[in-house]
């Protein structure tokens, strides 16, 4: 048994050390460097300061944080709301048709992220077919710009994250025994009532995963607002990138990243806390 333990240490050590050095320490550095001053060459100065944290009081930040939060929550809600009926539909199809539909949903998921954003930029282009159509049916004027605003950012976020939400919910729905729904209806439940009280609770785990895998990247989104958003639709991610690439103020970028980390981990901690309470409840029942 001693040998087994020793072998295990040897196999586990390289990746453990790698993750500590290139993942855990860098994450801690984010907090540390936020307390450092900036030096005139765009590097990190000596000593410690609280100045960067006071700079976060910049009046433009609260609205950016608020926008990041509501865009994250809305895009997550829309993605989940669409994924539930899609997963229901997919898991009820016969296996041939199901594979075709599943493939159609997975392909955009694997298609390069930039290409998908690019397709939308072309789609919403002032000279694109969609704009011409909107003008033709009278929903838009020649002067309306579809791009570079927060609605464009929101739509593209939903577009790119939707497959992330479908997959976990579908995996949960596929394990569901659909005869339970028929049984509920035989006992007099309406379709919607059966759906809400029988189907939804049994896929709740998939919904939980879907919320996490959409909400977290949405809160950290940077490419989408950068490419299809404008100055009025910036998110925290844009600000971090600007501090790094435009004015090379790494401590400021660190402080913003620490803030983002806080925003991201808050829902994570909350969900695991809720889960624990639910488990306790189930146990006591």
């Amino acid at each position, binding site marked *: 048994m001693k040998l*087994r333990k020793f*072998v*295990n240490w040897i*196999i*586990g050590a*390289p*990746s453990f050390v*790698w*993750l*500590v050095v*290139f*993942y855990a320490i*860098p994450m801690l*550095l*984010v907090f540390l460097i936020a307390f450092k001053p900036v030096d005139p060459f765009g590097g990190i100065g000596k000593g410690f300061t609280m100045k960067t944290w006071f700079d976060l009081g910049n009046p433009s930040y609260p609205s950016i944080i608020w926008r990041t939060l509501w865009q994250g929550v809305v895009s997550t809600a829309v993605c989940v709301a669409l994924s539930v*009926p*899609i997963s*229901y*539909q997919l898991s*009820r199809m016969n296996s041939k048709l199901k*594979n075709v*539909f*599943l*493939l*159609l*949903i*997975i*392909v955009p998921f*694997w*298609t*390069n*992220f*930039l*290409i*998908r954003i*690019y*397709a939308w930029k*072309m789609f919403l282009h002032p*000279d*694109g077919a969609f704009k011409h159509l909107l003008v033709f049916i009278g929903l838009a004027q020649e002067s309306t710009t579809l791009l570079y605003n927060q609605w464009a950012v929101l739509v593209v976020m939903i*577009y790119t994250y*939707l*497959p992330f939400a479908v997959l976990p919910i579908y995996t949960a729905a596929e394990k569901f025994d659909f005869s339970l729904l028929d049984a509920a209806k*035989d006992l007099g439940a309406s379709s*919607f009532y059966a*759906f809400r009280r029988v189907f939804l609770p049994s896929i709740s785990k998939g919904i939980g995963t879907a919320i996490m895998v959409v909400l*977290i*990247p949405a809160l*950290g989104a*940077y*490419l989408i607002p950068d*490419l299809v958003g404008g100055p009025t639709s910036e998110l925290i991610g844009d600000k*971090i990138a600007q501090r*790094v690439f435009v004015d090379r103020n*790494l401590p400021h970028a*660190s402080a913003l*990243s620490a803030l983002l*980390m806080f925003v*991201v981990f808050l829902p*994570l901690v909350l969900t695991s806390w809720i889960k624990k309470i639910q488990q306790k409840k189930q146990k006591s029942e």
Partner: protein
Amino acid sequence: MKVIRHSRIPFIVTLLTLVFLYTPLVLVAIASFNASKYGGSWAGFSMKWYIKLFHEPDIWNALVKTLVIAVISTAISTVLGTLSALALHRSTSKLKAIYYALVHTPLVVPDILQGISLLLLFVTIFSVCSPLLAPLGIKMELGLTTIIIAHITFCMSYVTMVVLERLHEFDNSLIEAAQDLGASGLYTFFRVTLPLILPGIIAGALFAFMLSFDDFVITFFVKGAGDTTLPVYIQSAIRHGKNTAVLNALSVVFLILTFIIVFSGQKLLTMKTEEHK
């Protein structure tokens, strides 16, 4: 018997979503065959943007760089990820929970945070080490090495998770049986465990390759001035709105390749599960 009617709403939502998913992509595909450089009007069918795409040296250079990075990071992250999956699977130690958190949390941290944290690490290391290395004529700067380190870091966790899942799936009694029959630890590993988890390792490696090949955000933070990978090239082309006609053609090539890979992957997976049954 009561006839149970199914609601049409889920089907309609599914169809509309597919329309939503594919309309922009289909329009880009159509535009890629448009002889006109500008998307506004149709000037006849043409393949000239595809021909131009294949004669664009910048794209070829970027592709080679991206492939080099992806191959190296896939190889190293597959080995490291598989080892950590084996260690996690076998371990009974108290460290296991910490180890698991180290492997698991990178999967949910937004890529921008991974990018900036690694940049901060490299900047800190450089500022400490360069005064020491300068007399030796060694210069440390951001470049291919830092990109590869970053890619290994974010690919590794995916490989570990995929292999770990495979390890949980199969029957441990097979390994115990081999050992009961007198097989040594190494022999059991190479003749029993490895063949059983190989599909997981291959799937993990493919996953790692795709992630590395597609990554823009993390690369952008840790790259040096001249390191234009394909995603970096595409981002700058989108941003500056240059060469969009060629970009249309490139998008179609990406789409077709993705379709082929996903389709064959799905075929492979269904074949595997049918074999099991």
